[in-house]
């Protein structure tokens, strides 16, 4: 009897200790100091080798670029219901600029911007219907990026088949990339056959299934595709790595220059259809610091990543065509996504 109770007592004491620890100071951490920049990710990680990572690199770059001492820190969102809370954590901490990444945070960002007119907000991939003075939506014309990549692929393919392994059609940027890619390929190579596949699973798995990405890329290679566009987080990365194992085949990355984020893809990675999120974020942070940031929509740059090891196979003629395409896209004479 007695010993039993003693152990229960001991257990309660340990619990009490933990509670005491918990009620202790929570001020040791925090990130304040100088000009503080906060970044809230979409439900993803700052090292996702994709847009969260790009945005985080941009935030760090922005912090380094501005003249005053500045710090950048991030919170990775676990559940989309926490968007508002995670933004609030930075607000409470006195952040001057808050970067929110992904269209999912759009509404939470607008709410926070309205409530905190003194804080500058940068919303990556967030379209602004009504401009708020302290909120810049950083948008990218993905179809344009996809079109340029497709145009290159149309010229490079020898089998006249190009493939795309994609995240999910539930996420519009993925659709824009795909449509741009296919139209671009057809633009430079009218005979080209485009074969594209979306991940068949739900939103929760579509970007995290490299096995499917790899298997599907292989399936496309086996039926003659010699250039594969992998667009869709880890799923797309799986496709890139698969193509890397096929002699002679090429692959195209997405979002950032995947030469640096997926080194396994070096044997095939001819370029990436880039959204220069890091550049855009850093630039907007600079503007915010300088007080020149305008509310509303800010269009970031898109483009093709360097060809790296494949510089040699892209002929001058191809480069010239690409320049024409780029010019056409810029002046609107080419519509990357008709309809």
């Amino acid at each position, binding site marked *: 009897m007695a010993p*039993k109770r003693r152990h229960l007592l001991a257990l309660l004491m340990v619990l009490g200790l933990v509670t005491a620890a918990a009620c202790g100071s929570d001020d*040791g951490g925090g990130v304040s100091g100088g000009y503080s920049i906060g970044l809230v990710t979409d439900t993803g990680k700052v090292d996702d080798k994709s847009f969260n990572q790009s945005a985080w690199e941009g935030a760090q770059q922005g912090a380094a670029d501005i003249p005053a001492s500045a710090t950048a820190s991030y919170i990775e969102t*676990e559940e989309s219901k926490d968007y508002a809370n995670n933004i609030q954590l930075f607000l409470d901490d006195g952040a001057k600029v808050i970067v929110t990444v992904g269209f999912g945070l759009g509404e939470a960002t607008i709410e926070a911007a309205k409530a905190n007119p003194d804080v500058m907000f940068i919303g990556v991939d967030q379209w602004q219907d009504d401009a708020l003075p302290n909120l810049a939506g950083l948008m990218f014309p993905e179809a344009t990026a996809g079109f340029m990549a497709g145009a290159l692929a149309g010229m490079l393919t020898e089998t006249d088949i190009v493939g795309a392994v994609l995240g999910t059609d539930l996420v519009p940027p993925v659709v824009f990339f795909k449509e741009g890619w296919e139209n671009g390929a057809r633009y430079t190579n009218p005979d080209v056959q485009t074969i594209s596949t979306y991940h068949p699973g739900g*939103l*929760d*798995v579509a970007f995290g299934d490299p096995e499917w990405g790899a298997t599907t890329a292989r399936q496309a290679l086996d039926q003659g595709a010699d250039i594969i566009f992998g667009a869709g987080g880890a799923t797309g990365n799986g496709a890139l790595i698969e193509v890397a194992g096929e002699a002679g085949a090429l692959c195209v990355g997405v979002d950032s220059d995947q030469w640096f984020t997926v080194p396994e893809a070096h044997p095939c990675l001819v370029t990436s259809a880039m959204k220069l999120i890091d550049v855009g974020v850093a630039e907007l942070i600079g503007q915010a610091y300088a007080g020149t940031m305008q509310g509303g929509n800010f269009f970031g740059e898109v483009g093709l990543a360097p060809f790296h090891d494949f510089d040699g196979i892209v002929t001058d003629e191809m480069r010239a065509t690409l320049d024409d395409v780029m010019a056409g896209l810029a002046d609107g004479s080419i519509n990357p996504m008709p309809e």
Partner: protein
Amino acid sequence: MSRSLLRTVATPLAAVVFGLLIGAVLILSQNASPITAYSALVVGGLGDADSLLRTLQKATPLIFGGLAVAFAFKAGMFNIGGQGQLLVGAVFAAGVGFGVDGLPMVVHLPAALVAGALAGAVWGGIAGALKATTGAHEVIVTIMLNFVAGNLTDWLSANPWKDNSGNNIVARTPLVEDSATIPTLGAVPVGFVLALVVAAACWFVLERTTYGFEVRSVGHNRNAAQYSGIKVGWIMASTMAVAGMLAGLGGAVESLGVDGRFEAGVNVGLGFEGITIALLARANPLGVIPAALLVGLMEAGASRMQFKAGVAPELIDVIQALILFFVAAPIIIRWVLRMRADNSEQLQLGAGWGRS
């Protein structure tokens, strides 16, 4: 009474403590301070009215998810399908919530809740009916139905029920009408109150009604239940439908009370946490409440923990797995604490009447 209550909670409590202690070691391994991390966790979950609201909001679907698992456990069934049942409940509740207008709240809100509950009941009932008629194991069927539900609800929210207002590009439904929105009373969301009421109702049904007696009989001894004239197949099918209904109700409360709409990918994982909660509560419907509050608190505080201490929020998942492990294998706790074994220490998925 208090002695026996103490004994009943000793194992889950010890499991939580052990989980946190091992979690502390992991935090140290990341060169962070466990004290800072845990205090941030608690402040993030209880620090002020907003945090408390978030904890309650997070606990609400966990209670429903936990009940969905616990109720099925009572009939000896393992419902891993809480996720899918919650999703269909969420999308159909939202569908009624935004698709119908002009109704007064007293009609509209209950109708939307019932739509979610029914959708969940159908989803759970499929697994139960297949088990009863063909013997198909509910674990496999509910897992498969989770995938199917994910695809189905994604499609619904991206196509026929998509929110086409403004420049929305997200796969989500329009906002539900005000008349279908669950209000908040002060700092307490009404959905949480509903969860408490439903948990109490589950307890009452299981312990005090003839239906509950049949459910528990099937759970404890399917053969004896059959011999005493209970229609075992019907009980298995209906129990899974009730379990699905509970999860579906959880999804409905999320759509109508927290998110204001259904959005693809937003409710991921909620259903699975019900398993941890139900086991932590030893399948007792009332025990589900504190278990859900605990997990809800950890999840509400996880962001602050990363913010203050730089600890990745996945730590919470690891701690949950550890707690589950210790609850499932109480023998380890007994060994460490040198407690004497007794029946209440076994993870019995159901017990006699509350004759303690």
